[in-house]
């Protein structure tokens, strides 16, 4: 497949892996912030390529995972309110809140619909004029502009039964919060590619400048990731940490001005709660004054019980890179993709889900060894 195969080329991959090894770097911790990177790293077996001195940490970049229970509880309460249709992306359905999940309350009659695009929510609002249609806006800078565009469209079309529960979040403040907490040593960041197509490279500049830590904005194919790791190591062996863009085919320094305009028009930045991290100043997006009438929390008052966390679940530690899934005693035992306890196991981009599905830190893979015979290279000619 063109534009995919080029970025999965084995020979180039081996060359990059060799270069990473040859750098003979001191042991370093590199954090991939984004959940899509976590999955790509596992799915393509990239950890298997890396020398022992390069350790990858997974960060807080899975929007489903970082949504705290209190926000999920609110969505559940809204879904259970009379004459409300709650619209969500599929990933949120099974995430356990404090007492239930959207999936469970749908099973007992709540009208919850899964969509692929926020624009479907507008259509549903138009088709159901007597209902209040609430879109559960989850996601980072990548998804927030489409939510903003839906709000603008609702205004333009005069759809007055469309509401938004915005738990949209911003990535760079979370990276700053991790560094301030100083619980885990991070030598470099693999910065999210999709988020950066929107925000560009500038919002990360404070990381090299204030913390002296290099950043590389990275694409999602295996060669992108290997090249980014190599670029980080190169920065680490130099003196001047900076924000480099590896994902040049998609990311511009200034980002996407149109999408940024949508964001600044519709939203204002607020302090937001993150699972495992707590409230991070200026890390969330809520509707600005001009669009307050679309705010589901203001328009449809709901009361929720005090949120609580699942006993033993270490998603919070895992999201901060402090723990690995294997350090959670629930992982693969009480907590599996079939019966997830925490969100990191629910989301396809969750760290626990990726560890569960694709690998276990070489325990099994190290038994594999080399092929018995060279059978797999048999070629047959007619």
């Amino acid at each position, binding site marked *: *497949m063109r534009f*995919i195969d080029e970025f999965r*080329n084995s020979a180039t991959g081996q060359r990059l892996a060799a270069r990473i090894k040859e750098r003979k770097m001191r042991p370093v911790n590199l954090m991939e912030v984004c959940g899509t990177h976590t999955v790509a790293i596992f799915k393509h*077996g990239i*950890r*298997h390529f890396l020398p022992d001195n390069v350790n990858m940490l997974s960060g807080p970049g899975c929007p489903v995972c970082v949504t705290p229970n209190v926000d999920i509880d609110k969505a559940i309460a809204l879904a259970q309110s009379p004459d409300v249709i709650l619209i969500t992306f599929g990933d949120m359905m099974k995430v356990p809140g404090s007492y239930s999940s959207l999936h469970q309350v749908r099973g007992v009659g709540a009208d919850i619909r899964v969509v692929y695009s926020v624009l479907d929510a507008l259509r549903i609002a138009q088709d159901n004029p007597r209902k209040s249609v609430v879109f559960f806006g989850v996601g980072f800078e990548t998804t927030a502009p489409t939510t903003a565009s839906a709000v603008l469209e609702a205004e333009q079309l005069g759809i007055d039964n469309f509401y938004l529960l915005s738990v949209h979040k911003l990535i760079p403040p979370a990276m700053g919060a991790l560094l301030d907490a100083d619980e885990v040593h991070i030598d470099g960041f693999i910065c999210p590619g999709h988020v950066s197509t929107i925000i560009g490279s500038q919002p990360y500049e404070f990381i090299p400048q204030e913390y002296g830590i290099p950043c590389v904005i990275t694409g999602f194919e*295996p060669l992108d990731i290997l090249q980014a790791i190599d670029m980080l190591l190169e920065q680490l062996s130099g003196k001047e940490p900076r924000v480099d863009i590896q994902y040049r085919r998609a990311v511009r320094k200034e980002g996407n001005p149109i999408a940024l305009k949508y964001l600044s028009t519709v939203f204002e930045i607020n302090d937001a709660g993150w699972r495992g991290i707590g409230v991070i100043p200026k890390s969330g997006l809520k509707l600005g004054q001009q669009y307050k009438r679309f705010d589901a929390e203001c328009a449809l008052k709901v009361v929720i019980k005090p949120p609580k966390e699942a006993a033993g679940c270490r998603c919070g530690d895992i999201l901060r890179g402090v723990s690995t899934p294997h350090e959670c005693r629930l992982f693969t035992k009480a907590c599996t993709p*079939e019966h997830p306890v925490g969100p990191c196991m629910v989301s396809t981009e969750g760290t626990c889900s990726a560890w569960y599905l694709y*690998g276990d830190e070489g325990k099994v893979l190290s038994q*594999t060894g080399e092929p018995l015979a060279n059978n797999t290279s048999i070629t047959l000619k007619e």
Partner: protein
Amino acid sequence: MPKDRITLGHGSGGKLSHDLIESLFLPPFINPILQASDDSAVFPLTDSDRTHQGRQLSKDEIAFTTDSYVVKPISWPGGDIGRLAVCGTVNDLAMVGAIPLYLSAAFVIEEGLPISTLRRIVTSMRRAAKEAGVKIVAGDTKVVERGSADGLFINTAGVGMLPEGVKVSGNNAQPGDVIILSGTIGDHGIAVLSAREGLAFSNNFKSDVAPLNHMVGAMLRTSAKIHAMRDPTRGGLATTLNEIAQQSKVGIRIVEEQIPIREEVAAACEILGYDPLYVANEGKVVTCVAPEDAERVVKVMRKTLYGHQATIIGEVLPEPRARVVMKTRVGGTRIVDMMVGEMLPRIC
């Protein structure tokens, strides 16, 4: 209710039911056993059943299976629920090495289904049965009120005879075996998905739904060292390989680059976020064969209609027991686990 649609009366057991059976079900499937129209099909396992293409069939062993088909929608590029209902059951028989002979077909029809649709599906079943060389000898029709089913559900059951000496199962893969796949993966799942409302993003897809018994017969005549065989349907190749690894208590190592996939299917999977290893197939077989026979088996498969892209995709190892690992295209290694949950509901 207009006359050209199924009504509850068609399922009453009365005149309308009889008319439907006489006019719609019997003619395409006609054979003396079905024609007897008794409560059970009665058939001897006669000489012609006992020998098949020169092979002696076992006197003692019968293969018997059943499967229900609830796929949505009931037609899609490259197939429909009728063809699937025949092929699925034929293939289940073929996967244990049996020669499929007789099928039953039971229809659960939603009130209001156009009779022309039912006729089209039944015609498709006849064609598939003819291609597979099986007879449909028993059947049943039920009609449920609108809303109680989704158009049409079909159950088929089938019996087949095992050739003397054939022993194929999922629990007999042996370290050293070579893993052969008969062709491209993911075609069925993506074709069905593309036919679903709201996801029609290309018209290039074609389901692979096909009867595999002739190819399997050819394979079994070629080698006595075919140790394990499965058709990777729901759950895809990944789940099937995991089943073999678990049942046979072996490790399996596959090479991503060797796994055939049509470019448009790969592209659709990329766009939709599906891993093609988990997407359903309905006309593929994966088999574990002793290395000395592997090349011969592949050659024979490639000469058959549904195996012309057959290729070696990996091997069976002693370790890691009950696990499947894959060398990725870029050169890494990862675990390939069973499918968790349902990726695409109602795919068959």
